[in-house]
């Protein structure tokens, strides 16, 4: 692990600090939540990588979406994502957030999560085991190094479109837009 390469730390402490102190916010969106407790307790111990679960999105920088996303839960996911401070990363488990997976034809499951909030990475497996989660985290490190994990930048720039998608799905949202949305350029196909 490149944790103790002093040169990397000196060059860019903020990015390195982000890599080695993920404060994770996850809540029981889907069936993958059962994989999280073993990953933070004795056998697999996520705290080795500095990963600690935190209660509020305000203190978090990694958002784990564990499993299929139903229409009701998506509202909570969007709200939580918007409440996280800026350099934030999202990782989704399994294939359900990608294209609806097994529930592709269910009337209340979102087929692709990427239309509503930016997702930085997916971990394959119909609920990946804790080892797979840690491998996913190491990949996220590489993405951060290469500045590829820019989900939050995309969300800020294309917020108009994300908001339009959300409003198209829900009609009228319960909270005002996060970033100012100019009415004129809101193009809905």
């Amino acid at each position, binding site marked *: 692990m490149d*944790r103790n390469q002093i040169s990397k730390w000196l060059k860019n*402490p*903020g990015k*390195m*600090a*982000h890599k*080695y*102190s993920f*404060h994770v916010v996850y809540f029981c969106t889907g069936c993958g939540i059962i994989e999280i407790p073993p990953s933070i*307790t*004795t*056998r697999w*111990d996520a*705290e*080795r990588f*500095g990963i600690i*679960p*935190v*209660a*509020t999105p*305000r*203190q978090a*920088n990694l958002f784990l979406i564990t499993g299929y996303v139903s229409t009701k839960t998506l509202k909570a996911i969007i709200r939580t994502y918007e*409440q996280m*401070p*800026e*350099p934030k990363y999202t990782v989704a488990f399994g294939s359900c957030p990608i294209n609806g997976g097994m529930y592709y034809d269910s009337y209340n499951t979102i087929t692709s999560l990427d239309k509503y909030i930016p997702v930085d990475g997916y971990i394959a497996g119909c609920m990946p085991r804790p080892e797979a989660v840690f491998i996913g985290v190491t990949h996220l490190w590489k993405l951060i190094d290469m500045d590829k994990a820019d989900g939050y930048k995309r969300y800020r720039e294309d917020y108009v479109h994300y908001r339009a998608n959300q409003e198209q799905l829900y009609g009228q949202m319960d909270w005002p837009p996060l970033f100012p949305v100019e009415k004129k350029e809101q193009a809905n196909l």
Partner: protein
Amino acid sequence: MNIVALIVSPLIALITGLFFLGLSRKISARIHWRYGPPVYQPFIDVMRAFSQKSITHGNFFDFGIILSLTGTIVLVLFLPIGGLWALNTGGLIMFLYLMLLGPFGIALSGAAAANPNSSIGISRNFLLALAYEVPLLLILLAVMTDYNTISLVEIVEKQAATGMAISSWRLVIPGIAYFLILPAILGLRPFEITGAVQEIASGPIAEFGGKHMAFYTLQHALQTFVGIALFVDIFLGGGTLFGLLNSLAGTVWVDILEIFIFLLKMVLVLFIGLFVNAVYPRFRIEQAMQYLWKWPTLIAFVGLVIVAIIN
């Protein structure tokens, strides 16, 4: 009031405080039979929090956390860290009142964040503080009446002459009582009621984002340092160790070694406190108050009665 101490003691307190947080997470991990984060993990957490762009609920929300951190730093100036003390005006009474600034600041900003989780957390925090203040006041009064002074520096100097307070039979009972309430002062596991993560979404700091979270971590580290340092100063005689250092008195080495001994004693106290922390479930606020007002208060009261009778 020497200028050196003004700069050095807050730095020492900050660094050792953060190391203590890392150490406590490492020890709890080891007790849970897992590796646990590296000891310098809190430094990384603070750096990460500073690099995040947080939200604020107005100027008073910021004022609260700034007041809290400033109050705790000034509090550290009062602590004689192994012969190195910055301020002595007002003595232990001023210390007691400054101890209040930390939680008071966080209470102000937590409430300004208009989140009921933090309001509940604050009410629990103050109730817990009321609970452990009763024995703490009895203990401090016992020490003050025994040494018949209110200044902390004099207490440490007198202990250097007559040996550790905990060894003198009069003050061993308050020492035990202080040790019983140490987890409550530090907010360790059985008394982690204020920032209960599962129940009230980490209590008063529910709305603390990037830099606010960083400031809170620094304040928490300093508070842990102060909690243990007060115990070491009052009962374990600050920087002296059975007159070991009298031989090289007067040289600059004495100061450095005294500080080192002081930190060593603090690590020892932290260790014992942490063993309790890792295995206990969390008390409800009523249970915590009933416990703290039963045994520690009884012991501290007996200690004070003994000391009062002698003087």
